[in-house]
């Protein structure tokens, strides 16, 4: 009896520890998914294909969300992720076709994303631009640039290049893409960077109290240029993955609002990279599950309602999480006095 009490104390201590560390949300989510998977297995659904699709959806969302988490921690908010997805996808495909290598295509797509991120930071840090407006500008440029580029180069709005699709790491038990592994590594590294290093402390301070960082002799502008470039690069990697790892080609609206879903991941995760990746997986899983079930009942449910699912899932998530906690100086240009 006494031993049990001890155990209970231990368990509650561990639980409190997790709560303090704010691991509870993703842990409960993970447990829910495992229970759900068991139920689905019993119901006769193919679990491997479900996980495969969840990971596919997670990869670009997670990459963009991890990068944007760091970016927002430093005080910049870039809502142009959608535009970066689109532009890096089309540049990645162009490079892949031109060079003849999918991997190099992904690399150049990543660089394109980094370049846009840097440009955004220069505009916002030195031009003191309204960040939401500038981000929306990136999105609207992409609405025009992608079809303009595709028509000018290929005379078409649709291009399939299965021969340049990057191959999976392995196929059993599930198909695993190398970029998916990169996304997970990026989330872990970002978490270590933000919470375990001096530079991470400075990044977080640049978002909370930029004047203190400045007084300490660290350049706020350089921190923000770095985080925005990194965020752009990760988002660009996600965009190039969309085209070269997942679709095996490109259509002019390839990202279909995923840039904003990634933004929702960041907001739901309270700007924590690992949690953002967790939310990306949850969104991916919800989308995969909903689509799988919807296809089973496609005679009853019109296809247009199936297409709505990712956006409805995102809305439900942001409604449940509610108001996000942002750094104090987010969205505000820092002016030295």
């Amino acid at each position: 009896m006494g031993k049990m009490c001890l155990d209970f104390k231990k368990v509650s201590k561990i639980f409190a520890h997790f709560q303090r560390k704010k691991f509870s949300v993703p842990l409960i989510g993970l447990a829910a998914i495992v229970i759900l998977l068991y139920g689905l297995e019993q119901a006769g659904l193919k679990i491997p294909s479900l996980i495969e699709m969840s990971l596919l959806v997670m990869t670009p969302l997670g990459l963009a969300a991890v990068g944007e988490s760091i970016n927002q921690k430093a005080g910049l908010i870039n809502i142009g992720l959608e535009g970066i997805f689109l532009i890096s996808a089309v540049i990645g495909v162009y490079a892949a076709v031109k060079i003849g290598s999918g991997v190099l295509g992904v690399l150049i797509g990543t660089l394109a994303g980094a370049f846009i991120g840097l440009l955004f930071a220069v505009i916002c840090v030195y031009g003191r631009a309204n960040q939401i407006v500038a981000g929306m500008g990136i999105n609207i440029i992409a609405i025009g640039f992608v079809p303009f580029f595709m028509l000018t180069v290929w005379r078409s709005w649709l291009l399939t290049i299965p021969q340049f699709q990057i191959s999976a790491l392995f196929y059993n038990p599930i198909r695993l893409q190398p970029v998916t592994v990169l996304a997970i590594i990026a989330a872990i590294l970002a978490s270590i960077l933000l919470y375990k290093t001096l530079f991470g402390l400075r990044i977080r301070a640049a978002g909370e109290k930029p004047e203190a960082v400045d007084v300490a002799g660290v350049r706020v502008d350089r921190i923000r240029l770095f985080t925005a470039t990194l965020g752009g690069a990760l988002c660009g990697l996600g965009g190039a993955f969309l085209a070269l790892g997942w679709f095996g080609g490109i259509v002019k609206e390839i990202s279909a609002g995923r840039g904003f879903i990634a933004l929702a991941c960041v907001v739901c995760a309270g700007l924590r990279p690992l949690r953002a990746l967790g939310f990306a997986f949850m969104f991916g899983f919800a989308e995969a599950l909903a689509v799988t079930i919807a296809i089973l009942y496609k005679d009853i449910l019109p296809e247009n309602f199936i297409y709505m699912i990712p956006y409805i899932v995102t809305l439900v998530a942001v409604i449940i999480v509610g108001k996000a906690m942002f750094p104090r100086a987010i969205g505000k240009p820092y002016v030295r006095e």
Partner: protein
Amino acid sequence: MINRIVKGLRDLARPVGQSVFAVLVGLSIGALIMIISGNNPIAAYYALFKGAFGSLSGWLQTLTFATPLMLTAITFAVGMKAGIFNIGAEGQVYIGAVGAAWVGGWIALPAGLHVAAATAFGMLFGVLWALPAALLKIWRGVHEVISTIMFNWIAFYFAIFLVGHLAGERAELTKPAMTSARYAVLGESLTSVIFVVIALCILVYILLWRTRTGYELRLAGSNPDAARYAGISVRRAILISFIVGGLAAGLAGAAQVLGGHPSWALFKGMGNVANYGFMGIGIALIGRNHPIGGIFAAIFYGGLLNGRIAMQAEAGVYSELVYVILGIIIISLAIPDLLAIVKKRFK
């Protein structure tokens, strides 16, 4: 009196100068892209502006393109005045167009009443689609950028679904609005709906700058702390901004259907309403978030939308470039002191 006019003009010079400069930056970078892609920018812009403003029929077509832009600009501008980034005009336009197409094409009413009822339903549907994002912002603090974009995508597929149910003989569009629900054609594709649109712009101007509600809305947007201190409800201001925005965007959708000579219908792929909501963001910024400024900005950009057809045909530049130009204009306008920065550099 004269002093007041002079002062008014002087106050106007700075914002207008900034907008003109941003437009020039957009057109210059557009020209650069044309050169890189192997086109002649002078020939392209000549064809574009000649097509848009070179003849009476060009002007009429330009005004046709400008009509919905004036409204979607209001959606964004009123949001900005209340401190909100309402980028949900796109979806509200779709749903507004569905409402107008339904009443205009399927419900027989006496002439005169019919066009008014169909227009009103378009606006009502626009507001209904705008409200959830407003309520989520007020109740749960959901960021409006995320919620409105999600509602835009849901609206896209929902509207496609509804068009399927409102189709007449042709499956790819709704049953055309009955003659009694159409606005009168003024020439080319321009219809009398433009007068309704301009009237709404003026009404919104009066609401914002000549009423107590408008003053409170603007104060809540520019200085929420001061507004709260003065006992003004910021939530009410947010709600009003979304309602006005929804009315304007819904009317834009209705205008594309009931004033949409010669099809008088909504296309299944949203072809005749797509992107007007997003373009409205740029129009609002060029018009300095002012309903009357928005009218002029819409006419300018309506010219680009009209002239791009001639540009593509005569100079071989793909017409999508005009969106890139708008995006660059938006980014230029996001930088508050761009003109001053450039002036300093070249002194």
